[in-house]
């Protein structure tokens, strides 16, 4: 394959037609049976397993791996889903190198953890391919709960509530359920429409109605929901994006990374997606990496990630940074955007200023330089899009206690929109599930 697609500016179809499918295929190939058995054999079945304690949903990892090793992959899937009904997605997107696999004792022993994520995928894939359902609904309680947001938090909450016999209506502003699983996660982590398959798998338990394109704050209010339902769970993620506060950020060619990714995730023909020849991504988190990598995979010639602090401060994990580097993304540290340069309303470059820590404060050094580019993507963090609808906010998020309760005794919240935990799929699942348990206890005692 030679150099191609060197059109200046922002253009679609930079790659040969078959190259797209190859670039956006599964990041990690799933394990075959032999690989899964060999890997499962490496697990020591640890007592009070560190991997399990490092999993925000506390999946019984030693047990499910042992079940795989005895040829009982369905039993393994049940063990996983008991704790985490989105175990299939988490197997694909969890930064395992910072969670279970980092804690695995074989990391300590020989620097090579048991590949828990891939084993989890092996088991959950088996169950989902066979459409094997493990949970049934308890006798109906007659209680109705509204869930706002059909992302991981909302879905995990809805499933657990349905299991306990409650009726659940999930409202989501988007045309499809799944939240960032559908609109955000990098496409090479969850190809082949997996997010929608998972939504179907979860809702198959019954008792869950998903109502799309209904926005809290636009189509209904929290008091209205509380009138019609016994309790409410808020799992609406972070819908807003932080602004750069740099000149020119609204020019043609400057866009939000999350919008770019959502577009990409919803495209059914990647060759029609326009991408710059030279792309600059501002930010140092998972979103920035995903935007940069996928720009590269779409055929951008040069992709530069610019982060205002050092490597050690980046939110993107070591694995994600390496992934970006391996795809040819250049990561520049200690630089901050000053001005997006434009010509005739179109982006032509970006002016950046070097930064440094002085007395613990990040400051510009005054020296600047310019990177010519046709596209600038902003990935400097998302924000809560609502004012909280009357529930208390802390540090820009809905304040919750360890059970997910908000300041309103009939309202719970979890996932990215709520305090506590990192902004990860798996934490959203844990918080959604735990809130469902708390709601159930509350409704039983009421």
């Amino acid at each position, binding site marked *: 394959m030679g150099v191609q697609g060197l059109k200046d500016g922002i253009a679609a179809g930079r790659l040969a037609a078959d190259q797209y499918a190859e670039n956006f295929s599964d990041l990690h190939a799933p394990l075959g*049976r*032999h690989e899964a*058995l060999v890997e499962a*054999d*490496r697990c020591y*079945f640890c*007592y009070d397993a560190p991997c399990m304690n490092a999993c925000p949903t506390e999946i019984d990892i*030693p*047990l499910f791996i*042992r*079940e795989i090793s*005895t*040829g*009982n992959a*369905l*039993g393994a899937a*049940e*063990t996983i889903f008991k704790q985490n009904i989105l175990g299939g997605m988490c197997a694909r997107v969890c930064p395992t190198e910072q969670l279970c696999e980092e804690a695995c004792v074989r990391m300590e022993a020989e620097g090579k953890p048991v590949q828990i994520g891939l084993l989890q995928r092996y088991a959950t894939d088996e169950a989902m391919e066979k459409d094997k359902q493990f949970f049934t609904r308890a006798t109906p309680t007659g209680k109705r709960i509204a869930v706002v947001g059909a992302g991981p938090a909302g879905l995990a909450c809805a499933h657990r509530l349905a299991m306990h016999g409650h009726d659940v209506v999930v409202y989501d502003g988007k045309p499809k359920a799944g939240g960032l699983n559908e609109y955000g996660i990098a496409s090479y982590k969850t190809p082949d429409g997996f997010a929608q398959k998972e939504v179907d798998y979860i809702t198959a338990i019954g008792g869950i109605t998903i109502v799309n394109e209904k926005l809290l704050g636009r189509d209904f209010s929290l008091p209205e929901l509380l009138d019609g339902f016994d309790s409410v769970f808020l799992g609406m993620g972070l819908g807003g994006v932080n602004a750069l506060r740099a000149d020119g950020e609204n020019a043609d060619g400057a866009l939000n990374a999350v919008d770019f990714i959502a577009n990409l995730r919803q495209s059914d023909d990647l060759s029609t997606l326009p991408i710059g020849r030279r792309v600059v991504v501002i930010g140092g988190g998972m979103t920035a990496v995903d935007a940069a990598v996928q720009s590269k995979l779409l055929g951008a010639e040069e992709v530069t990630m610019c982060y205002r602090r050092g490597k050690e401060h980046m939110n993107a994990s070591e694995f994600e940074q390496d992934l970006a580097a391996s795809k040819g993304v250049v990561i520049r540290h200690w630089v901050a955007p000053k001005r997006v340069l434009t010509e005739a309303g179109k982006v032509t470059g970006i002016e950046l200023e070097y930064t440094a820590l002085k007395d613990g404060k990040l400051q510009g050094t005054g020296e600047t330089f310019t990177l010519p580019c046709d596209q600038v993507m902003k990935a400097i963090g998302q924000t809560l899009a609502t004012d909280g609808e009357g529930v208390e906010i802390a540090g820009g998020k809905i304040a919750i206690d360890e059970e997910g309760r908000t300041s309103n005794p009939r309202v719970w919240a979890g996932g990215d929109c709520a305090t506590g935990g990192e902004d990860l799929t798996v934490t959203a699942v844990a918080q959604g599930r735990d809130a469902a348990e708390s709601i159930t206890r509350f409704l039983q005692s009421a």
Partner: protein
Amino acid sequence: MADIRNNFVGIKSPNPFWLASAPPTDKAYNVERAFKAGWGGVVWKTLGEEGPPVVNVNGPRYGAIWGADRRLLGFNNIELITDRSLQINLQEIKQVKKNWPDRAVVVSIMVPCEEDAWKAILPLVEETEADGIELNFGCPHGMSERGMGAAVGQVPEYVEMVVRWCKQYSRMPVITKLTPNVTDVRRPARAAKNGGTDAVSLINTINSITNVDLDLMAPMPTIDGKGTHGGYCGPAAKPIALHMVAEIARDPATYSLPISGIGGVTTWRDAAEFMALGAGNVQVCTAAMVYGFKIVEEMISGLKGWMDEKGYATLDDFTGKAVRNVTDWQYLNLNYVTKAKIDQDKCIKCGRCHIACEDTSHQAITKSKDGVRHFEVMDDECVGCNLCVNVCPVEDCISMIALEPGMLDQRTKKVVDPNYANWTTHPNNPAAKTAVEPAE
């Protein structure tokens, strides 16, 4: 969902997984933890007669052998019966049974081979309201030097005699635990049956020395420079136990005598195998000692999953199903012909099948094709022995394929005969008579 409730000689338990009489069942503390973890029953660590308890060594009492990645395969011990006082054990048994009425609590006993000794202990055990007793005729070390354990189990007349006393002086179900340290396990099993036992359980541990310390020049585990033989158990002992279980299950004299299968049970699959060969339930020691009580969760989930897959609703649906297929060599069908076949997509080209066959079998696997490394079975040389299947590191990479009747066996150049024919009628057999059908 499959129902795995177990009824063994009238003793009910929520599942067929019991802990064998051994350290995991030596105290209320352990047994309570086991029940919390989900075990269906326990056989309490063997009790001895009233008086000062036995003493154990104060140094290492266990030895082991390992496979790759230090996975424990075989386990050995020189521990004796319980070294705690009889009264404390009895009190604890009574309390545990009261706390866990739905679990099986069986008490293992070993007292001298004298009628009075048995007559004395049986009412004490009965008083605990335990579900039954197990007679330890198997311990192969220490106790056997004192005329107990395997020393009894190896003499069928003693076995019968003691079982008879127990049936006479107690109303409890009697399970007779057999030693594998005999040439023919059917003889003590028949004796136990003649004595009136309700069931047998097997195997106890096998005489063994697991390893030798080459610096100390002493067997391990080593106690102050010396060692002694111990009892061997764990996964490596399973094949021996399976055979003995099957022999008793298909012996016309003991056919239908309930069996509790013991020896190397580590996963649900091991348990299913014992039960297919006629065991009504299984007992576990080593696997619990190596991994902790939690393994029973895997056993329960795996057994249920497999039963669901196979459509077995209860344990009775498959218990003993393989017994009728255990036969003597002389009844095996000599007209059944198989050939090994290598799945080239799965083959990783390690060459182990080739060298195994080339050096030690029938020179039936190629090592190259058109100058490149390539392993393929030559049907005209393959005798279907299964060696390559067993040495291949990839599961299901080599399979044994049966030739259909009417097909040509390339090795013998004979057409496969559809009719069953065994050694008893084979022309090469000097004693060949008319055909004899295998015993059902």
